[in-house]
């Protein structure tokens, strides 16, 4: 049924977003290192996926340790400010700096809560980099494949694309698309419709309520 197909897509959305690093924590992202300026977008993803897989496959780490280590990698690889700005689009400029900071904080927390436990689902998957392409505005999109065991054979089980943007000599991830579903586009659709009908206060209330409910 159609719903099963969508849900399969959403399932991969959850698992592989963890691998791309949409996890949160209390730490602020570290400053980009000078060596990163030489790395191409593809090299950044290559390094990130290999490091994440190494963590997930390490038998000496327990689940909370794996979650935390992957979260640290996420903070290094992800440009959360740009993600927030792009998600709100034309509404971003209409917010005060306090509202912007408040939004970034709640959004970050929400993503951390939602995707934080997905590293627990890892079994024996592999990630292969397929190709890369440049977008018209200068971003680069790196296409990867998740290889796993399905129907008794080893085959591709999902396509994951990372969109990266160069920020101060370092390539950072600004969106992840799994089997065609973009994280940024999905939240953008939700948030922009909420903003159009209820304004920033409505959006902030919904985010805060969601985060509070998750805390319990």
């Amino acid at each position, binding site marked *: 049924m159609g*719903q099963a197909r969508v849900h399969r897509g959403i399932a991969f959305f959850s698992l592989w977003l963890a691998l791309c690093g949409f996890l949160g924590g209390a730490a602020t992202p570290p400053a980009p290192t000078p060596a990163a300026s030489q790395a191409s977008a593809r090299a950044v993803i290559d390094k990130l996926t290999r490091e994440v897989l190494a963590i997930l496959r390490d038998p000496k780490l327990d689940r909370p340790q794996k979650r935390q280590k992957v979260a640290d990698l996420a903070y290094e690889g992800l440009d959360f400010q740009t993600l927030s700005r792009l998600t709100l689009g034309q509404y971003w400029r209409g917010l005060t700096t306090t509202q912007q900071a408040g939004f970034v904080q709640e959004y970050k927390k929400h993503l951390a809560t939602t995707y934080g436990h997905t590293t627990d689902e890892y079994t024996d998957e592999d990630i292969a980099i397929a190709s890369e392409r440049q977008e018209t505005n200068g971003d680069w999109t790196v296409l990867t494949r998740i290889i796993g065991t399905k129907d008794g054979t080893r085959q591709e089980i999902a396509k994951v694309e990372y969109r990266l943007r160069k920020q101060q000599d370092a390539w950072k991830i600004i969106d992840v698309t799994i089997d065609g579903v973009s994280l940024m586009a999905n939240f953008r659709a939700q948030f922009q419709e909420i903003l159009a009908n209820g304004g920033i206060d409505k959006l902030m209330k919904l985010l805060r309520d969601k985060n509070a409910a998750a805390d319990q």
Partner: protein
Amino acid sequence: MWAFNLWRNLILVVIAIGILSGCAGDPKNIDPWETVNRPMYDFNEGLDRYALKPLADGYVKVVPKPVRTGLGNAFDNLGYGNVILNDFLQAKWGQGCSDAGRMAVNSTLGIAGLFDVAGPWRMPSHDNDFGITLGKWGMPAGPYMVLPLFGPSCARDAPAIGVEIVTDPLTWVDAPLAAIIPLRVTQAIDARSRADMEVKFRNAAAIDPYIFTRSAYLQFRAGQIHEGQPPPDNSGMYDEESAPASAPATPSGTDTPPAATGTP
């Protein structure tokens, strides 16, 4: 070849009329039927929470996993004629032959589809349906629709359910309703039990579950149709603060990759 084109064009015209009659005015609005869709979505969620999910949970608790796997395989196998048909409609000859082989092997050696014998024999399962076929033939998604029970769909994909029904052998079996209905209900419960992780995830991730589902559905379908070769993105979604500060009253095409919004 000309006959194929004639049929394709006829089908496109008929469905285009259906789509255009639903598109009221604004080509950027990908959910013109939102006022009808939202209540239907809530109805489906209620049905899920009070009927389908409890039944699915009970099913998981009571029925041993090997039996559930077998039933799931059998149901998937029944629906596989639809995949094969659409493989060929999309000129995917290799995949079509592999899928035909899969269904043949599983139906026989796999005992009416209960066992997935074909999978380890390099005939893996694929997803395909008439909505993807129409999409590959150039038809846009049309207005988003939420169908009772079936959930998210669109003007292009809804008729594909008819194709699913027609290609399902169970539709043509001459058996009393007293036998068919429990089978169909079990099929629904089985599908729901297999989707439980995804539904839980959606409930946790979504701030507005209706929009989350709509956005994920439309993007996922576009992804299935374009298969990793998306059309160029000119939505401006990735450009910094490109649009004016004033807020539009209706949702603009942010749910789908650009080529899927409002193209004729």
